[in-house]
């Protein structure tokens, strides 16, 4: 029997029973999709955290919780704990071990999105040698009360170059500042929390808060929430860390290290997720083999007929194996798409609601799930086919 005939018979058996095929493929797709989604959720969350901290080697802020400092400055979350005095910020900027110092003033918002007062030095930040913050539309500010909008902030608010807006002190419901900002540019996505940010000249933030002596505890007269620092070398980074360990005016932290510590707490949850992924994968496999077994068992008369027509056992097994493997492949491929799409949608929502923008590149770990399911399922289908085509006595 020719290979094309074997393939044709197997394909016809699949295509001529659309409901059965749809049911089987759906079961495999949803269960394998769940395994893929759980894996992506776990690794995507970690990757999102890593991406978020990548641009910032060192963060310096008021003494207190390093987690809060990192949440404030890197993830643009939570309420800032306080400000670094202007002289301390200046001292950090002037430190010979510092290559780049970016002041950050936080506390204001627009439409619930964080307004980040900073300087044009932020455009000098690079990740793996590539400029981190790039203008997609318009230009970077060169004057007071000009703003550049992050990619997601632009999408959420509809702000475009030329638009005017007023910032609010604190979160939504806070007091609106008097002087409007003019949008002069929109950034490319940085795939991180700063996509949700509206960047403005820090001097304008100071001017807003100095204006009329409104009594806010936020930035004024050179005070900053934090300094994001690029050291000249690793040695300088550790030197800075050591220098500021006993400094009362501010603390210096490595955001990556802090995020890792933070993630190790979450990591226990990730381990649980991975265990669930493995369990779901095994359940998917067993379900698939069971489906293939019963599907094959229901076709005993057809196999008997084909055998009596002169189809050898090997070809019969090949038809059953092909049928099973095609169903499995379709289900796993669909499951992969569902898993990826589901996680992308979930993380899209998560990214809008929070500061994390997990980008999920294809990884060996992700591929290993459908690959393992396919391999193990194919082996299962093979043994199922052998079981069904073994010589039976009448």
């Amino acid at each position, binding site marked *: *029997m*020719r290979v094309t*005939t074997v393939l044709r*018979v197997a394909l*016809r*058996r699949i295509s*001529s*029973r659309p409901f059965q095929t749809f049911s089987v493929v759906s079961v495999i797709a949803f269960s394998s999709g769940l395994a893929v989604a759980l894996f992506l959720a776990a690794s995507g969350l970690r990757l999102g955290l890593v991406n978020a901290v990548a641009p910032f080697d060192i963060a310096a802020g008021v003494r207190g919780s390093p987690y809060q400092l990192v949440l404030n400055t890197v993830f643009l979350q939570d309420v800032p704990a306080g400000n670094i005095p202007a002289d301390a910020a200046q001292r950090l900027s002037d430190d010979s071990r510092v290559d780049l110092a970016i002041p950050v003033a936080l506390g204001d918002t627009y439409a619930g999105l964080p307004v980040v007062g900073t300087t044009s030095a932020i455009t000098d930040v690079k990740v793996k040698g590539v400029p981190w913050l790039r203008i997609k539309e318009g230009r970077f500010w060169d004057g007071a009360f000009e703003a550049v909008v992050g990619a997601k902030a632009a999408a959420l608010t509809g702000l475009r170059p030329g638009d005017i807006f007023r910032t609010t002190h604190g979160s939504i419901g806070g007091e609106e500042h008097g002087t409007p900002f003019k949008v002069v540019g929109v950034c490319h996505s940085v795939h991180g929390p700063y996509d949700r940010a509206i960047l403005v000249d820090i001097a304008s933030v100071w001017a807003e808060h100095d204006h009329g002596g409104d009594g806010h505890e936020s930035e004024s007269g050179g005070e900053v929430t934090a300094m994001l620092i690029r050291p000249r070398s690793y040695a300088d980074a550790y030197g800075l860390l050591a220098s500021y360990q006993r400094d009362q005016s501010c603390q210096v932290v490595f955001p990556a290290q802090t995020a890792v510590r933070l993630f190790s707490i979450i990591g226990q949850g990730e381990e649980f997720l991975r265990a669930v992924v493995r369990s779901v994968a095994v359940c998917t496999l067993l379900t698939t083999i069971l489906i293939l077994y019963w599907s094959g068992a229901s076709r005993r*008369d*057809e196999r*008997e*007929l*084909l*055998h*009596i*027509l*002169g*189809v*050898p*056992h090997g070809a019969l097994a090949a038809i059953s194996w092909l049928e099973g493997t095609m169903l499995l492949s379709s289900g796993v491929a669909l499951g992969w798409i569902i898993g990826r799409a589901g996680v992308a949608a979930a993380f899209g929502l998560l990214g809008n609601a929070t500061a994390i923008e997990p980008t999920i590149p294809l990884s060996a770990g992700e591929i290993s799930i459908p690959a393992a399911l396919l391999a193990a399922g194919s082996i299962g289908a093979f043994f199922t086919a052998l079981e069904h085509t073994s*010589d039976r*006595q*009448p």
Partner: protein
Amino acid sequence: MTEIKGDAEKIPSIWQISGESPPRPLLEISSIRKDYRQPDGSNMTALRLGPLTAYPGEAISVTGPSGSGKTTLLRMLAAITKPTFGEIRFAGQDIARLGNAEAAWRAVSVGYIFQDINLLPDFSVLENLMLASEISHVPVKAAESRASSLLTRLGLDGRKDSRPAKLSIGERQRAAVARAVIHRPPMILADEPTASLDAENARVVIRMLTELCAERRALLIVATHDDAVRRALPRTVKIGSEAAL
């Protein structure tokens, strides 16, 4: 336990009457027995059969009560199962020794009709015929021509594109006849082919089978417990408790 007593050799054949030299036998069965192992480890004899010789063009009915081993005999003749003891020779070849060539031999040498499932449900009547031809290595052009001719003759011209589920039982069995003979095998085995049919359809199916086999000088062996079928075929082999020629 079932057995057959006597065989065709006891009846004067047309060759003996005409004085012509008979053709070489197509089928030669020595005394055979088929045992199956029971779950408790003991053996159960499903069939015991005395010597039997059959010639090309003969039409034989095999009768006997249910469980007498009719299906087992046909399966052994088709080389699906092997006799526990004894030998079955087809055109001089011991079919128990076909080994890996068993399926290929069957594809060319045997046409088989079951009581019910005779067509693949996912294929149309014509596709079933073409698939059977393909398995038997009949060239496509020849298969198309034969299929067209057979379907017309069996009154299935308008049903060639129908799936088996859309056919009446009678149409299905006629399609089964076409499927069994399209590759022109020298031996047709039919296992209760009329069991599901009314008398008229049964008569049509047996008439078609005998005509088509006679035209190609194919040996036809029909397992049946239908007296009408037995009477329609010139030679009968009885197995089981009613064993007698």
